[in-house]
C-alpha cells in the first residue's frame, strides 16, 4: 500500500511542476492566451499579451473581458465566448474578423496585427468552468500570402502572355506553311485559270471566310471576277466591276488593304454577294511594281473585319500570288503571241506563194506571146490575138499591183480618202460598166435595182467605185457560167445600202467570219480554181470602214450563193448644205459629163486672176468656147480694179501669185460691199490639193476649191453650179422683196 504522505507529496510536486511549466509558457510563449471564468472574468492574461497590449495582468485580472474590450460586443464577437461556455469551439478567421483585440503589428506599423483566434470551452471534470482563447499573430503569414498571391498573379499573367506568344508563333508558323503550300500549288498550275482557283481555294481554307473572290484588272482598269470560292462560279465569274467603283475598285485605287462592314459599296458583284448573305469584306490589291494586277477579297457573313494577322497573311498571299499570276500570265500571253505569230507567218507564206503565182501567170502569157512576136513567125491574125492577150494580162497584172499597193497603204495607214458628198447610183453604174465584159464572157446575167435619188453620202467617189467593182468582180469570179449577179442601191433609213448578190459557190459557214481578212481565201489549197490574191474583200472592208460604213457577208452555205451588203450613212441635212457647192460638182463629174454637154455659159461674165500667162490663155479659150465673156487680171491688185469696173458674175483666182496671193485677194474682195462686188461667187484654183488647203481657201471667202491641173469639164461644172446658186439666191432675194 503506498504511502499517503508520499502520494500527497508527489501530487504537490506535479502541481508545482505544472505551475512552473505554465509560468514558462506564460512568459515565453509567442501566442496570446486569455483564460476566463464562466462569467468571462479574466483569469489569465499572459506575458505576450501584456507586451503587445501594454495592459498588465495585475490591472485586469478579475475584470470582465467584455468590459476591458467593449468593442467585442459591438463587433458581435462576444457570442463566440458564449458559445464556448455552451461547449462549442470556434476558430475565428483573420479574413473575416482581421483581429480579436486591436494591437499594432509592430511599432512602425499603422495596420493592426492580423490574428487567427481559437475560442474553446474550459472544462473540468465534465463541467464547463470558463473559456480559453488562443491568439496567433498571422500578420507575417498574411503579408507573405499577399506577396505570394501577387507573384502567382504575375506568373499567371506571364504564363498567359508566354502562351499567347507561343500560340502566335505557332499560328505564324502554320500560316507560313499554308502560304508555302498555296504558292507551291499555284506555281504547279499551267493555266492562269487554274492558278487563280488554287489561290482562292487556299485562302479560303486558311482564313475560313464565307467567300474568297479574285478579280483581275483589264486594260481600262475594270476588274473582272476570274475566280471564286464559296459561291457557285456561274453566279459571279465574269462579273465586271468598273474602275474605281465597288469595294474592289476602292482597294485597287487605294492600293492598300481595306475592309468594309455592314453596307457594301454598290457594284454588280456586291449585289450578288449581299444576296448570299455577305455583310463584310476585307481585300488587298495584287501589285506588281505598283501596277494593279487585280484584287483579292474575302467575304464574311458576320459584321466584322479580319484581324491584323489575317490581313498580314492575306497581304503575303497577295504578294506571292501577284508573282505567280504574272508568271502564268506572261507564259500564257507568250503562248498566244507565239501561236498568233506562227499563224500570221503561215498566212504570209501562203500569201507570198499566191502573189508569186499570180504575178507569174500573166507574165508567162506576156513573155510567151512577146517571144512569138519577136520570132516573126506568126501571121497577122495571130499577132493581133497575141497583142490582145498581152494587153489583157498586163492590165490584170496592173490590177494586182494596184491591189498590193492599196493593201500596203492600208497596212501603213497611208490610205486617205478625198471625201465629198457623193451620189452612189452613178458610181455603181460605172462599176457595172467596167465588169460587164467579164460577165458577158462567162454568160453571167447582170441584173440591177438601182434607185437614183437615195441621197448623197460623204465619200471618195473613186474608192466607192472601187468597193463596188471589187464586190462585182468577186461575185463574177465565183459565179459559174450562166449564173446571175444582182446589184441594188437603196435607201434604208439613214443609210444607203448597196447589195451585191450572186448565185455562185457561196461561203462555208466556218469561213464567214474570216471572209474579209487579209491574205485569206476560202480555198487556199494549191489546186484552187480561182485566181486572185484574196485581197479584194479585205480592201473592201477597209475602204467601207474608212467611209464610216459597214460591210456584211451572208451565205446560206456552199453552192448557194452569197450576198454582200455595204451600208454608208447618208449625209445629214446640215452638213449637206455646208458643202453643197462641191457636192453638185463632184456628182456631175462622177457622171462623166463631157465638155460638149457643159457648153452653156452664154452671157456669163467671168474674171480670171492668174500670174501665169499660159494658164490664163487656156482658161480663156475654154470658157469663151462655152460662150462666156472673160476678163483677165495678172495680179491681185489688177483683179480688184477689174471687179470695180466690170462687176463680173464669177471670179476665178489662182492662189500662188507673187506679192499678194489668192487668199489676200479674196479677203480684200470680200471686204467690199455687195454693190461693189463683195459677194461675187468665186473659185480657187490651186496645186495644193490637201484638205487643209481647201479649208483655207473656203475660209478666205472662196466658194469652191478646184485643184490643179484643171480639167476643163470640172471647171465648167464648178462654174455652172455657182451660177445656178447665184440665180437661186437672186430668185429668193426677189421673192423676199
Amino acid at each position, binding site marked *: 500500500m503506498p504511502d499517503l504522505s508520499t502520494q500527497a507529496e508527489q501530487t504537490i510536486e506535479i502541481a508545482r511542476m505544472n505551475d512552473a511549466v505554465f509560468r514558462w509558457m506564460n512568459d515565453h510563449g509567442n501566442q496570446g492566451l486569455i483564460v476566463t471564468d464562466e462569467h468571462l472574468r479574466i483569469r489569465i492574461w499572459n506575458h505576450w499579451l501584456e507586451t503587445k497590449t501594454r495592459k498588465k495582468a495585475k490591472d485586469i485580472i478579475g475584470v470582465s473581458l467584455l468590459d476591458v474590450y467593449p468593442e467585442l460586443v459591438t463587433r458581435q464577437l462576444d457570442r463566440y465566448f458564449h458559445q464556448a461556455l455552451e461547449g462549442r*469551439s470556434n*476558430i475565428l*478567421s483573420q*479574413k*473575416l474578423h482581421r483581429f480579436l483585440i486591436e494591437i499594432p503589428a509592430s511599432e512602425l506599423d499603422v495596420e493592426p496585427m492580423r490574428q487567427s483566434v481559437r475560442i*474553446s470551452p474550459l472544462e473540468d471534470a465534465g463541467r464547463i468552468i470558463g473559456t480559453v482563447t488562443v491568439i496567433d499573430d498571422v500578420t507575417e*503569414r498574411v503579408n507573405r500570402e499577399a506577396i*505570394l498571391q501577387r507573384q502567382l498573379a504575375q506568373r*499567371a499573367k506571364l504564363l498567359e502572355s508566354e502562351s499567347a506568344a507561343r500560340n502566335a508563333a505557332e499560328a505564324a508558323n502554320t500560316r507560313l506553311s499554308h502560304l508555302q503550300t498555296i504558292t507551291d500549288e499555284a506555281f504547279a498550275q499551267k493555266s492562269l485559270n487554274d492558278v487563280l482557283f488554287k489561290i482562292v481555294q487556299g485562302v479560303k481554307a486558311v482564313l475560313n471566310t464565307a467567300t474568297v473572290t479574285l478579280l483581275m484588272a483589264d486594260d481600262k482598269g475594270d476588274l473582272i471576277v476570274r475566280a471564286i470560292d464559296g459561291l457557285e462560279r456561274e453566279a459571279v465569274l465574269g462579273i465586271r466591276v468598273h474602275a474605281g467603283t465597288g469595294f474592289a475598285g476602292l482597294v485597287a485605287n487605294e492600293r492598300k488593304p481595306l475592309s468594309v462592314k455592314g453596307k457594301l459599296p454598290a457594284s454588280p458583284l456586291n449585289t450578288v454577294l449581299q444576296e448570299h448573305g455577305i455583310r463584310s469584306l476585307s481585300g488587298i490589291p495584287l501589285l506588281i511594281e505598283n501596277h494593279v494586277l487585280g484584287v483579292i477579297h474575302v467575304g464574311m457573313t458576320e459584321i466584322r473585319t479580319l484581324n491584323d494577322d489575317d490581313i498580314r497573311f492575306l497581304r503575303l498571299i497577295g504578294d506571292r500570288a501577284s508573282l505567280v499570276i504574272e508568271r502564268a500570265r506572261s507564259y500564257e500571253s507568250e503562248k498566244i503571241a507565239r501561236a498568233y505569230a506562227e499563224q500570221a507567218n503561215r498566212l504570209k507564206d501562203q500569201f507570198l506563194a499566191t502573189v508569186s503565182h499570180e504575178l507569174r501567170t500573166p507574165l508567162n502569157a506576156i513573155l510567151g506571146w512577146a517571144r512569138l512576136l519577136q520570132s516573126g513567125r506568126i501571121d497577122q491574125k495571130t499577132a493581133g490575138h497575141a497583142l490582145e492577150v498581152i494587153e489583157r494580162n498586163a492590165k490584170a497584172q496592173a490590177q494586182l499591183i494596184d491591189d498590193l499597193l492599196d493593201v500596203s497603204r492600208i497596212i501603213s495607214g497611208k490610205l486617205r480618202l478625198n471625201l465629198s458628198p457623193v451620189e452612189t447610183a452613178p458610181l455603181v453604174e460605172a462599176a457595172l460598166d467596167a465588169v460587164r465584159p467579164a460577165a458577158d464572157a462567162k454568160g453571167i446575167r447582170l441584173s440591177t435595182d438601182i434607185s437614183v435619188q437615195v441621197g448623197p453620202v460623204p465619200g471618195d467617189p473613186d474608192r466607192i467605185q472601187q468597193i463596188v467593182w471589187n464586190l462585182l468582180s468577186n461575185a463574177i469570179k465565183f459565179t459559174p457560167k450562166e449564173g446571175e449577179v444582182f446589184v441594188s442601191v437603196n435607201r434604208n433609213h439613214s443609210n444607203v445600202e448597196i447589195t451585191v448578190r450572186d448565185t455562185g459557190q457561196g461561203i462555208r459557214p466556218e469561213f464567214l467570219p474570216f471572209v474579209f481578212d487579209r491574205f485569206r481565201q476560202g480555198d487556199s489549197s494549191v489546186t484552187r480554181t480561182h485566181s486572185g490574191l484574196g485581197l479584194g474583200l479585205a480592201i473592201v472592208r477597209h475602204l467601207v470602214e474608212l467611209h464610216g460604213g459597214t460591210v456584211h457577208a451572208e451565205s446560206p452555205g456552199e453552192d448557194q450563193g452569197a450576198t454582200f451588203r455595204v451600208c454608208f450613212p447618208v449625209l445629214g441635212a446640215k452638213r449637206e448644205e455646208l458643202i453643197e457647192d462641191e457636192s453638185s460638182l463632184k456628182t456631175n463629174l462622177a457622171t462623166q459629163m463631157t465638155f460638149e454637154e457643159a457648153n452653156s455659159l452664154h452671157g456669163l461674165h467671168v474674171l480670171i486672176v492668174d500670174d501665169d500667162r499660159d494658164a490664163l490663155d487656156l482658161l480663156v479659150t475654154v470658157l469663151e468656147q462655152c460662150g462666156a465673156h472673160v476678163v483677165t487680171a495678172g495680179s491681185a491688185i489688177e483683179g480688184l480694179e477689174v471687179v470695180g469696173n466690170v462687176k463680173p458674175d464669177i471670179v476665178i483666182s489662182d492662189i500662188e501669185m507673187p506679192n499678194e496671193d489668192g487668199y489676200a485677194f479674196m479677203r480684200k474682195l470680200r471686204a467690199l460691199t455687195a454693190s461693189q462686188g463683195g459677194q461675187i461667187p468665186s473659185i480657187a484654183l490651186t496645186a495644193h490639193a490637201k484638205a487643209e488647203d481647201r479649208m483655207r481657201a473656203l475660209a478666205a471667202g472662196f466658194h469652191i476649191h478646184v485643184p490643179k491641173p484643171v480639167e476643163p469639164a470640172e471647171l465648167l461644172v464648178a462654174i455652172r453650179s455657182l451660177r445656178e446658186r447665184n440665180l437661186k439666191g437672186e430668185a429668193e432675194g426677189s421673192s423676199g422683196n
Partner: protein
Amino acid sequence: MVLTERQNDALTELINIAFARTGAALSELTGHRVLLDSPSVALHLASELDNSLSRFVPGEVAWIHQVFHGPVAGDALLLLNYEGAVHLTELLTDESSDNSRLDESAREVLTEVGNILLNACLGVFGNVLHVHVGFSVPRLRLDTIQDLIAWLNRSRGELRYALVIFTRFQIKDSQVNGYLVLVLNMDSFDRLVKEIDEWIEENERKTINP
C-alpha cells in the same frame, strides 16, 4: 433503414431551421445577405456514399470536419468542390484572386463557415431534440472524394448511416453548391430517429392543445 415520410419532413424542417440560423450568422459576419437552402435530404449507408457523392466532383474537394459526441455522436462534414470553396471564400470576403487557390487565410474562412454551419445544425438538433452534443474543433482538409469516403469508413467495423443534405449558398447573385453530411452509427441513428418521433408527437400535441 428508411425514414418515413413524416420523419423525413421533420428532418427537413429541422435542417431548414439550422440553415436559417447559419444564413443569418453569415449575413451578420460578412455584411451581405447570405441565404442557405436545402432542396433535398437523403439517407445512405456510409459505405455506399461513394456512389452518390462521386458524381459531385471528379477532382479535389474541400471539407470541414467536426466530430460531435454525446447521446448522438458521429462525424459532421461540409463538402465543397475546390472551385466552389474558392468562390465561396471570395464571395464572403469580398476579395477576388487571380489564381484559384485556397491559401491559409481562405482555409480559415472556410473552417469558420463550416464551424458556424455545423454548429448551427448540431445545435438545433441538440436544442430541439433535448440531447446535449459536444463538439471538437473543426478542421479543413483537401482530398479526393474517394479518399474522404475511405477515411470516413476506415477501421470502423460498425454499420453507419449518412444523412446527405444538399446545401446551396446564395450570396450576391451567385450560388455555391455543397453537401452537408452527418455520419452516425446505428445507436446514434436510432436515438436520432427516436428523438425525431418524439419531437413530432410533441409538436402534434402542441398543435392539438396549444
